[in-house]
Protein backbone atom coordinates (compact mmCIF):
# COMPACT_ATOMS: atom_id res chain seq x y z
CA UNK A 1 0.00 0.00 0.00
CA UNK A 2 1.27 3.51 -0.76
CA UNK A 3 2.53 5.23 2.42
CA UNK A 4 -0.03 8.04 2.18
CA UNK A 5 -2.84 5.49 1.89
CA UNK A 6 -1.42 3.50 4.80
CA UNK A 7 -1.30 6.65 6.90
CA UNK A 8 -4.94 7.42 6.10
CA UNK A 9 -5.94 3.85 6.96
CA UNK A 10 -4.18 3.97 10.32
CA UNK A 11 -5.63 7.39 11.13
CA UNK A 12 -9.14 6.19 10.36
CA UNK A 13 -8.51 3.09 12.43
CA UNK A 14 -7.35 5.08 15.46
CA UNK A 15 -10.21 7.57 15.22
CA UNK A 16 -12.96 5.00 14.73
CA UNK A 17 -11.52 2.71 17.43
CA UNK A 18 -11.45 5.60 19.90
CA UNK A 19 -15.03 6.60 19.11
CA UNK A 20 -16.16 2.96 19.52
CA UNK A 21 -14.23 2.55 22.77
CA UNK A 22 -15.73 5.62 24.44
CA UNK A 23 -19.17 4.87 23.07
CA UNK A 24 -18.93 1.45 24.76
CA UNK A 25 -18.05 3.26 28.00
CA UNK A 26 -21.12 5.49 27.65
CA UNK A 27 -19.18 8.62 26.65
CA UNK A 28 -20.11 10.38 23.41
CA UNK A 29 -17.05 11.71 21.60
CA UNK A 30 -16.71 13.69 18.38
CA UNK A 31 -13.43 13.54 16.46
CA UNK A 32 -11.68 16.84 15.78
CA UNK A 33 -9.12 17.35 13.00
CA UNK A 34 -5.92 15.45 13.83
CA UNK A 35 -2.69 17.36 14.28
CA UNK A 36 0.37 15.58 12.99
CA UNK A 37 3.26 17.70 14.18
CA UNK A 38 1.96 20.36 16.53
CA UNK A 39 3.13 19.53 20.07
CA UNK A 40 1.22 22.52 21.46
CA UNK A 41 -1.95 20.48 20.90
CA UNK A 42 -0.72 18.08 23.56
CA UNK A 43 -1.53 19.48 26.97
CA UNK A 44 -1.57 17.66 30.26
CA UNK A 45 -4.84 16.12 31.45
CA UNK A 46 -5.83 14.69 34.82
CA UNK A 47 -5.79 11.09 33.57
CA UNK A 48 -3.02 9.93 31.27
CA UNK A 49 -1.64 6.54 30.26
CA UNK A 50 0.51 4.98 27.57
CA UNK A 51 1.07 1.55 26.09
CA UNK A 52 3.92 0.42 23.86
CA UNK A 53 3.67 -1.70 20.74
CA UNK A 54 5.89 -3.27 18.15
CA UNK A 55 5.36 -5.39 15.09
CA UNK A 56 6.25 -5.61 11.43
CA UNK A 57 6.99 -2.03 10.40
CA UNK A 58 5.75 -0.45 13.62
CA UNK A 59 7.23 0.33 17.02
CA UNK A 60 6.15 3.03 19.37
CA UNK A 61 3.73 4.22 21.99
CA UNK A 62 0.05 5.03 22.06
CA UNK A 63 -0.97 7.62 24.63
CA UNK A 64 -4.35 8.63 26.02
CA UNK A 65 -5.06 11.93 27.79
CA UNK A 66 -8.46 12.36 29.42
CA UNK A 67 -9.85 15.26 31.47
CA UNK A 68 -11.24 14.38 34.90
CA UNK A 69 -14.71 15.52 33.84
CA UNK A 70 -14.93 12.88 31.13
CA UNK A 71 -14.18 10.13 33.63
CA UNK A 72 -17.09 11.36 35.75
CA UNK A 73 -19.36 10.24 32.91
CA UNK A 74 -18.25 6.61 33.27
CA UNK A 75 -20.87 4.45 34.94
CA UNK A 76 -19.63 2.65 38.03
CA UNK A 77 -21.02 0.13 40.49
CA UNK A 78 -20.88 2.02 43.84
CA UNK A 79 -20.05 -1.26 45.56
CA UNK A 80 -17.12 -1.90 43.23
CA UNK A 81 -15.60 1.48 42.32
CA UNK A 82 -12.39 1.91 40.33
CA UNK A 83 -10.04 4.86 40.05
CA UNK A 84 -9.63 7.16 37.08
CA UNK A 85 -5.96 6.17 36.86
CA UNK A 86 -6.91 2.49 36.55
CA UNK A 87 -9.67 3.27 34.06
CA UNK A 88 -7.46 5.27 31.70
CA UNK A 89 -4.83 2.52 31.72
CA UNK A 90 -7.49 -0.05 30.90
CA UNK A 91 -8.87 2.25 28.20
CA UNK A 92 -5.54 2.74 26.43
CA UNK A 93 -5.01 -1.03 26.60
CA UNK A 94 -8.41 -1.69 25.05
CA UNK A 95 -7.82 0.98 22.41
CA UNK A 96 -4.57 -0.63 21.30
CA UNK A 97 -6.33 -4.02 21.37
CA UNK A 98 -8.96 -2.70 18.96
CA UNK A 99 -6.32 -1.20 16.66
CA UNK A 100 -4.31 -4.40 16.80
CA UNK A 101 -7.37 -6.45 15.82
CA UNK A 102 -8.05 -4.17 12.84
CA UNK A 103 -4.40 -4.26 11.76
CA UNK A 104 -4.53 -8.05 11.44
CA UNK A 105 -6.63 -7.51 8.32
CA UNK A 106 -3.73 -5.45 6.95
CA UNK A 107 -1.24 -8.23 7.70
CA UNK A 108 0.34 -6.38 10.60
CA UNK A 109 0.67 -8.30 13.87
CA UNK A 110 1.44 -6.14 16.86
CA UNK A 111 2.86 -7.18 20.19
CA UNK A 112 1.38 -5.12 23.00
CA UNK A 113 3.20 -3.89 26.07
CA UNK A 114 1.49 -3.27 29.38
CA UNK A 115 -0.40 -0.03 30.03
CA UNK A 116 1.39 2.50 32.21
CA UNK A 117 0.34 5.61 34.05
CA UNK A 118 1.74 8.81 32.52
CA UNK A 119 2.59 11.90 34.58
CA UNK A 120 3.48 15.41 33.42
CA UNK A 121 7.20 14.63 33.29
CA UNK A 122 6.49 11.53 31.24
CA UNK A 123 4.29 13.55 28.91
CA UNK A 124 7.06 16.08 28.34
CA UNK A 125 9.46 13.24 27.51
CA UNK A 126 6.91 11.73 25.15
CA UNK A 127 6.54 15.05 23.32
CA UNK A 128 10.32 15.61 23.29
CA UNK A 129 10.79 12.15 21.74
CA UNK A 130 8.53 13.13 18.86
CA UNK A 131 4.84 12.68 18.28
CA UNK A 132 3.71 11.36 14.90
CA UNK A 133 0.11 12.43 15.34
CA UNK A 134 -2.38 13.62 17.90
CA UNK A 135 -6.04 12.70 17.59
CA UNK A 136 -8.44 14.93 19.47
CA UNK A 137 -12.00 14.19 20.51
CA UNK A 138 -14.55 16.53 22.00
CA UNK A 139 -16.72 15.31 24.86
CA UNK A 140 -19.33 17.09 26.97
CA UNK A 141 -16.67 17.41 29.66
CA UNK A 142 -13.54 18.52 27.83
CA UNK A 143 -11.24 17.19 25.17
CA UNK A 144 -9.64 13.76 24.97
CA UNK A 145 -6.38 13.30 23.09
CA UNK A 146 -4.79 10.13 21.70
CA UNK A 147 -1.14 10.36 20.71
CA UNK A 148 0.89 8.17 18.39
CA UNK A 149 4.65 8.22 18.67
CA UNK A 150 7.50 6.06 17.42
CA UNK A 151 8.19 4.71 13.95
CA UNK A 152 5.52 3.56 11.54
CA UNK A 153 6.23 2.23 8.05
CA UNK A 154 2.85 2.84 6.48
CA UNK A 155 3.82 0.90 3.35
CA UNK A 156 3.69 -2.33 5.41
CA UNK A 157 -0.09 -2.13 5.57
CA UNK A 158 -1.40 -4.52 2.93
CA UNK A 159 -5.10 -5.26 2.91
CA UNK A 160 -6.22 -8.87 2.86
CA UNK A 161 -9.87 -9.84 2.82
CA UNK A 162 -9.37 -12.46 5.52
CA UNK A 163 -12.26 -11.95 7.93
CA UNK A 164 -12.04 -14.88 10.32
CA UNK A 165 -10.73 -12.80 13.21
CA UNK A 166 -12.75 -12.34 16.37
CA UNK A 167 -13.79 -8.83 17.30
CA UNK A 168 -14.74 -6.84 20.39
CA UNK A 169 -17.48 -8.39 22.47
CA UNK A 170 -17.22 -11.83 20.84
CA UNK A 171 -17.54 -14.88 23.09
CA UNK A 172 -16.14 -18.05 21.59
CA UNK A 173 -16.82 -21.33 23.37
CA UNK A 174 -14.28 -24.03 22.48
Amino acid at each position, binding site marked *: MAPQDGRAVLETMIQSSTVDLFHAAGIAVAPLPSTRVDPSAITSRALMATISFNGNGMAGTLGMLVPAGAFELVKQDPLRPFTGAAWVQDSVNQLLGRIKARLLQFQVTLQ*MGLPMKLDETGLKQLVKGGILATYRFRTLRGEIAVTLSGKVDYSKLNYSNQTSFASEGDIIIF
Partner: protein
Amino acid sequence: MSSRKILIVDDSETIRQRVAGALEAAGFSTITARDGVEGLVAAQKERPAMVILDVNMPRMNGLDMLESLDVRNSELAVLLLTTEVQPSLMARAKKAGAKGWMVKPVNLEQLVATVRKVIAQAPAAVSA
Protein backbone atom coordinates in the same frame (compact mmCIF):
# COMPACT_ATOMS: atom_id res chain seq x y z
CA MET B 1 -14.27 -26.77 45.47
CA SER B 2 -17.21 -24.33 45.45
CA SER B 3 -19.18 -24.27 42.20
CA ARG B 4 -20.09 -20.64 42.95
CA LYS B 5 -16.57 -19.31 43.46
CA ILE B 6 -14.89 -17.51 40.55
CA LEU B 7 -11.29 -16.30 40.41
CA ILE B 8 -10.74 -13.20 38.25
CA VAL B 9 -7.15 -12.66 37.17
CA ASP B 10 -6.50 -9.34 35.43
CA ASP B 11 -3.98 -6.55 35.91
CA SER B 12 -6.74 -4.01 35.23
CA GLU B 13 -8.49 -2.84 38.39
CA THR B 14 -11.39 -1.68 36.21
CA ILE B 15 -11.94 -5.14 34.76
CA ARG B 16 -11.56 -6.88 38.12
CA GLN B 17 -14.14 -4.58 39.72
CA ARG B 18 -16.64 -4.68 36.86
CA VAL B 19 -16.52 -8.44 36.38
CA ALA B 20 -16.58 -9.16 40.11
CA GLY B 21 -19.52 -6.80 40.59
CA ALA B 22 -21.54 -8.46 37.82
CA LEU B 23 -20.80 -11.99 39.06
CA GLU B 24 -21.59 -11.14 42.69
CA ALA B 25 -24.88 -9.56 41.64
CA ALA B 26 -25.64 -12.89 39.94
CA GLY B 27 -24.97 -14.84 43.14
CA PHE B 28 -21.37 -15.95 42.64
CA SER B 29 -18.58 -15.28 45.08
CA THR B 30 -15.38 -13.85 43.64
CA ILE B 31 -11.74 -13.54 44.42
CA THR B 32 -9.29 -11.49 42.39
CA ALA B 33 -5.63 -11.53 41.46
CA ARG B 34 -3.51 -9.01 39.57
CA ASP B 35 -1.24 -11.29 37.53
CA GLY B 36 -0.48 -14.90 36.76
CA VAL B 37 1.73 -15.42 39.78
CA GLU B 38 -0.94 -14.17 42.21
CA GLY B 39 -3.51 -16.09 40.21
CA LEU B 40 -1.72 -19.41 40.56
CA VAL B 41 -1.44 -18.96 44.32
CA ALA B 42 -5.12 -18.00 44.59
CA ALA B 43 -6.24 -20.92 42.43
CA GLN B 44 -4.37 -23.41 44.62
CA LYS B 45 -5.49 -21.85 47.89
CA GLU B 46 -9.12 -20.98 47.10
CA ARG B 47 -10.00 -23.84 44.71
CA PRO B 48 -12.51 -21.91 42.59
CA ALA B 49 -14.83 -23.54 40.08
CA MET B 50 -13.71 -21.18 37.36
CA VAL B 51 -10.94 -18.77 36.45
CA ILE B 52 -11.57 -15.75 34.25
CA LEU B 53 -8.16 -14.94 32.91
CA ASP B 54 -6.56 -12.02 31.06
CA VAL B 55 -3.72 -12.72 28.64
CA ASN B 56 -1.38 -9.72 28.80
CA MET B 57 -0.28 -9.24 32.41
CA PRO B 58 2.98 -8.48 34.23
CA ARG B 59 5.14 -11.19 35.84
CA MET B 60 3.23 -14.12 34.34
CA ASN B 61 0.84 -13.85 31.41
CA GLY B 62 -2.48 -15.64 31.27
CA LEU B 63 -1.49 -18.33 28.80
CA ASP B 64 1.53 -19.31 30.89
CA MET B 65 -0.70 -19.40 33.97
CA LEU B 66 -3.26 -21.51 32.11
CA GLU B 67 -0.61 -24.04 31.13
CA SER B 68 0.69 -24.13 34.70
CA LEU B 69 -2.81 -24.89 36.00
CA ASP B 70 -2.92 -28.10 33.96
CA VAL B 71 -6.71 -27.79 33.59
CA ARG B 72 -6.93 -30.75 31.21
CA ASN B 73 -6.40 -32.91 34.27
CA SER B 74 -8.69 -31.04 36.66
CA GLU B 75 -12.29 -29.89 37.08
CA LEU B 76 -11.30 -26.24 36.92
CA ALA B 77 -12.92 -24.31 34.05
CA VAL B 78 -11.02 -21.41 32.48
CA LEU B 79 -12.35 -18.61 30.29
CA LEU B 80 -9.96 -16.11 28.74
CA LEU B 81 -11.01 -12.43 28.77
CA THR B 82 -8.66 -10.32 26.68
CA THR B 83 -8.23 -7.73 23.93
CA GLU B 84 -6.24 -10.30 21.92
CA VAL B 85 -7.84 -11.85 18.81
CA GLN B 86 -4.90 -13.66 17.29
CA PRO B 87 -5.95 -17.16 16.19
CA SER B 88 -2.57 -18.60 17.30
CA LEU B 89 -3.19 -17.44 20.88
CA MET B 90 -6.72 -18.87 20.89
CA ALA B 91 -5.36 -22.17 19.59
CA ARG B 92 -2.81 -22.25 22.42
CA ALA B 93 -5.54 -21.63 25.00
CA LYS B 94 -7.77 -24.31 23.51
CA LYS B 95 -4.92 -26.80 23.47
CA ALA B 96 -4.23 -26.06 27.14
CA GLY B 97 -7.83 -26.86 28.02
CA ALA B 98 -9.55 -23.46 28.25
CA LYS B 99 -13.32 -23.53 27.76
CA GLY B 100 -13.61 -20.31 25.84
CA TRP B 101 -12.30 -16.94 24.73
CA MET B 102 -14.00 -13.58 25.31
CA VAL B 103 -12.86 -10.39 23.60
CA LYS B 104 -12.92 -7.19 25.67
CA PRO B 105 -15.10 -5.28 26.14
CA VAL B 106 -17.69 -7.96 26.79
CA ASN B 107 -21.30 -7.26 27.71
CA LEU B 108 -21.44 -8.20 31.39
CA GLU B 109 -24.83 -9.91 31.11
CA GLN B 110 -23.44 -12.11 28.36
CA LEU B 111 -20.37 -12.81 30.44
CA VAL B 112 -22.50 -13.95 33.38
CA ALA B 113 -24.62 -16.13 31.09
CA THR B 114 -21.48 -17.72 29.65
CA VAL B 115 -20.08 -18.38 33.12
CA ARG B 116 -23.35 -20.06 34.14
CA LYS B 117 -23.38 -22.18 31.01
CA VAL B 118 -19.76 -23.32 31.30
CA ILE B 119 -20.06 -24.09 35.02
CA ALA B 120 -23.26 -26.07 34.42
CA GLN B 121 -21.39 -28.20 31.91
CA ALA B 122 -18.43 -28.86 34.22
CA PRO B 123 -18.06 -32.41 35.57
CA ALA B 124 -18.13 -31.24 39.20
CA ALA B 125 -21.45 -29.46 38.70
CA VAL B 126 -22.99 -32.52 37.08
CA SER B 127 -21.91 -34.85 39.88
CA ALA B 128 -22.73 -32.38 42.67
